[in-house]
């Protein structure tokens, strides 16, 4: 193993890496996948295929706090159009609530703790067709 390879190793796997990507933490990636699964379960036809989930913060409570076993997750759901945003949220937030409950129960089952999940729906116009957006979500390099 040459020194260059060693450098590469440390760059991508060291905990102090300065260039960590938002999704680099495997747990937050898993969380985003579970939220996406909930979207696939809740919505019909093509809508979930237009959605992308990005976890913006994944925090485990510090040990001394009141509720040490809680994991706080904040995530954005990106849709392609304004009209889809309305569908995902639903009347008075009924649909997003369904999604949240489904995702939270599966997250709680996986991590074996209580989970606080905050979802926000955002519009990212035609993200499936744009190179820069796909790079941002990690589909292209």
């Amino acid at each position, binding site marked *: 193993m040459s020194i260059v390879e060693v450098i590469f190793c440390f760059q991508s796997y060291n905990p102090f890496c300065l260039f960590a990507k938002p999704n680099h933490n495997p747990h937050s990636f898993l969380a985003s996948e579970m939220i*996406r699964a909930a979207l696939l379960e809740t919505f019909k036809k093509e809508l979930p295929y237009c959605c992308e989930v990005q976890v913006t913060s994944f925090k485990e409570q510090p040990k001394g706090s009141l509720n040490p076993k809680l994991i706080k997750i904040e995530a954005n759901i990106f849709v392609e159009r304004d009209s889809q945003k309305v569908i995902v949220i639903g009347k008075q937030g009924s649909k997003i609530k369904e999604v949240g409950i489904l995702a939270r129960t599966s997250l709680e089952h996986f991590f074996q703790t209580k989970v606080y999940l905050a979802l926000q729906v955002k519009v990212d116009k035609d993200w499936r067709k744009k190179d820069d957006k796909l790079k941002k979500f990690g589909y292209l390099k």
Partner: protein
Amino acid sequence: MRTRARINPLIGIFFLLLSTLLQNVPAFHVESSLVHTRISDYTASSRGRPRLPPPLFASPASESSQNNEFKSETTTANDAYTEQRKLFESLDSSFDYEGRVQSSHQGNNNTSNNKNSIDYNQFHSGYVSVIGAANMGKSTLVNSLLEESLCIATRRPQTTRHAILGILTTNACQLCLLDTPGIIETPAYKLQEGMMEAVQGALKDADVLLVVTDIFSTPIPNDELFARVQKLHAFKPTIVVINKTDLQPHKVNSNSDATDKTSDQNSDDDDDDDNNYYTAAEDGDERLEKTATIPDAVSRWRQYLPDALAILPISAVDGPTNPGVVLLRRILLGGPDVAAAIRDLGRPIPGMFRPGVAFIGDDEARALLPLGPPLYDEDMYTDRSER
């Protein structure tokens, strides 16, 4: 980008120096967890496989315990291993690819750090790429092989978008299962192109190919990729999985049942018209003209991939206890007792194994994965402190 290029080597060297000084500082341990998802590394493999360090910082306690088990096993089967080693050295071209960590290299590198750890010369590790058309149950299969609901699996096609890595480590080998997005005929938009690139990367990385199809013998829809699989399977060990065998008696288009999800994410509020939107509308009747029984499907795939090591009927939805899943896991992990698992599967189907071969022995199964040190931290599977 310029600043990155300038800063990174400095940081790398800094950590290199730091690591030599502070090897026992717990904060510096390579972060381990159940999953390692390397999205950016797999979507496009221009840089190839990431160079992973050997588990330099594995905890000494676990090493010693694993070491004991290891010694006892290796002394008994030493002759078989030396034979395999010779075999592998003759086959070096087929298992040599960019970024592959060679076992001999590791041995030289780690002499100071891992003197009393696992004998890496006897360890097998490698990548198993799970590929197949959309909605064949690849994620479900990976989940039941890992006995863990790691990849999300729903009844809808195209659920998986990234190549997801699941790791199964035993004291003799490490299995890196690479779940990939389902192959589609023509990518409709950029996202799907990216997903197909993930499949290409997984094909490139694979030490063992796991081609997943269903009882209707749905082929790999993309001709280019299918040709590549046919070419690859001549020199990479390939196992074909005929999934959804639980559908056999019905002979109806009840895909929605077959691709049902595993365990925890289950909620049955889906309606059927929704599920058939993507599956039945595309190829509902057409698919029924294809094979409908296991022997038909096996012979069909024997024609497609004549050199396939095994063609196994599996029902991945049944979970880890399904005899097919048990057999597949034992083959990939190299035992123990592959023959018994084959017996449990039931009556042998003609064409299940290569012509003239009645079964797969433990040694042959063990030789599937290349010899080499673990690619990931050994504790990754057992480290569940966060769960």
